[in-house]
């Protein structure tokens, strides 16, 4: 076991959903899926995105893709044309999630 970034074994994609973003993350093996299901609790993800996500976090599971999907509410400064932020659509939030370090 060693501390590694999710980026070393997981993939992610993110985009906008209203004034929030969605962040999907998935892995290749069942063992890694169990690992990220344990590590990426709603609380852990909310804590990680404290500078970005001002609303609640919801988690969905998709076992067939070995994926988790997170909705980060109020994470875009208004969203769409209302946002003044550079990343008004949360395009980069997936890569931000992959910065989390886990024991693997």
């Amino acid at each position, binding site marked *: 076991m060693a501390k590694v970034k999710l980026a070393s074994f997981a993939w992610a994609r993110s985009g906008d*959903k209203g004034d929030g973003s969605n962040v*999907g993350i998935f892995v290749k093996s069942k063992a890694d899926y169990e690992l990220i299901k344990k590590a990426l609790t709603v609380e852990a993800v909310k804590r990680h995105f404290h500078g970005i996500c001002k609303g609640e976090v919801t988690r969905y599971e998709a076992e*067939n*893709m070995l994926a988790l999907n997170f909705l980060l509410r109020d994470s875009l400064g208004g969203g769409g044309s209302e946002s003044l932020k550079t990343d008004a659509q949360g395009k980069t939030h997936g890569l931000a999630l992959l910065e989390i370090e886990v024991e693997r």
Partner: protein
Amino acid sequence: MRDKVLIGYGQGFWGDSILGPVRLVREGPLDYLALDYLAEVTMSIMQKQKGRNPKAGYATDFVTMLARVLPEVHRKGIKVIANAGGVNPGACLDAVLDLARKQGIKGLKVGIIEGDDILTRIPDLLQGGHPLANMDDGRALSAVQSQILSANVYIGAFAVAECLKQGAQIVIGGRLTDPALVAGPMIHEFGWGPQDWNKLASGTMAGHIAECGAQCTGGNFTDWRAVKDFVRIGYPIIEASPDGTFVVTKHEGTGGLINRETVISQLLYEMGDPNRYLGPDCTADFTSAKIEEVGKDRVRLSGIKGGPATDTYKVSISYLNGFKAVGQLTVSGPDAVEKAKLCAEIVWGRLALDGCTFEAHEKIVEIVGSGVCHEGVVKASNPPEVVLRMGVKCSDEDKVDRFGMEIVPLVTSGPPGVTGFAGGRPKATDIVGYWPALLRKDQVKTRVRVEET
């Protein structure tokens, strides 16, 4: 019935590369070419254009693209499905017919789908007890009724299939859903019915994978070093079968990458609850799909389950929600971050001297280069230069313009090393608010019209 139909997706959004569709037509076999030209903001821009000119209000990029490939499309019998009609499908139809005549193409059938644009019907609908309340926060539409810019119903795949059935080779819709551009041809080719939920869910899922063009063929992929030849990246082709099974692939010899990971990445894009993806024709369970690599750049999806759609259509309403302006300039080191912060304080301070202040939620300061995309995640280092980006938004257009006047003066009246201001003063632009709502399906009738050169 054909046992295999090839549906390419050449345009992922308004502004995508013209090379996508052109290369799909030229670089290999293709039966259908699907093209998405709309976004929420697009519809409001198009309504404005139509207000100034009754022959405008559609995606002119579509006609520009067709001008390059129409003879080949006609000769090969490729059918084109596009939501390029915007808020004026009739004008788009005329433009395409004109183009075909100019190019000497005879017997080309072009069809349009109308009925999605409900802008002028809103007073009647509200009167008739259809509240069109905001899906996100429940507000009544009356709160913004005087500011509405556009209102469109998301139309599904059966309208596309109907237009194809009437013989159109080019199908032009207004606000068709993106997946409908792919599911429509499947319904038409394979004779699927409105209660073939699993098949319709397959069509929806295929459409969802393809709808952002190259984003399923290696674009925006986490493991980007594994993607070869971004320059010639292949756009996706859905190889569809009558039972709903389909393979995501691309033309041989093109760049990019299709594997399990690139496809799953796109499945998760803009995803809510993966168990229940809502569309106008069905609900789709994305967690039911079996996803397998079956060859080089070939991923097969099968076993997809679906269910009935709801009795409402989603409606996309846009409205004027104030004004905004964003300006930026570059601040060089040493101490770039510290100086950029000072610059921002100077701007807010000088505006306040002139009686112009903004609430915290009406303004933003970003020091690009110090970690704005991943705020609170990645720690800022000491970058040799940064871009200071400042913006405001509010309902007072004059105040927003006043802000814009206070950025450039920093070059001579702030700390040293301020440069890179090339864009002129930022001017106030409209903020287009997005208002998602629901409307009972019995209130919407789509119409199809086909004309021939």
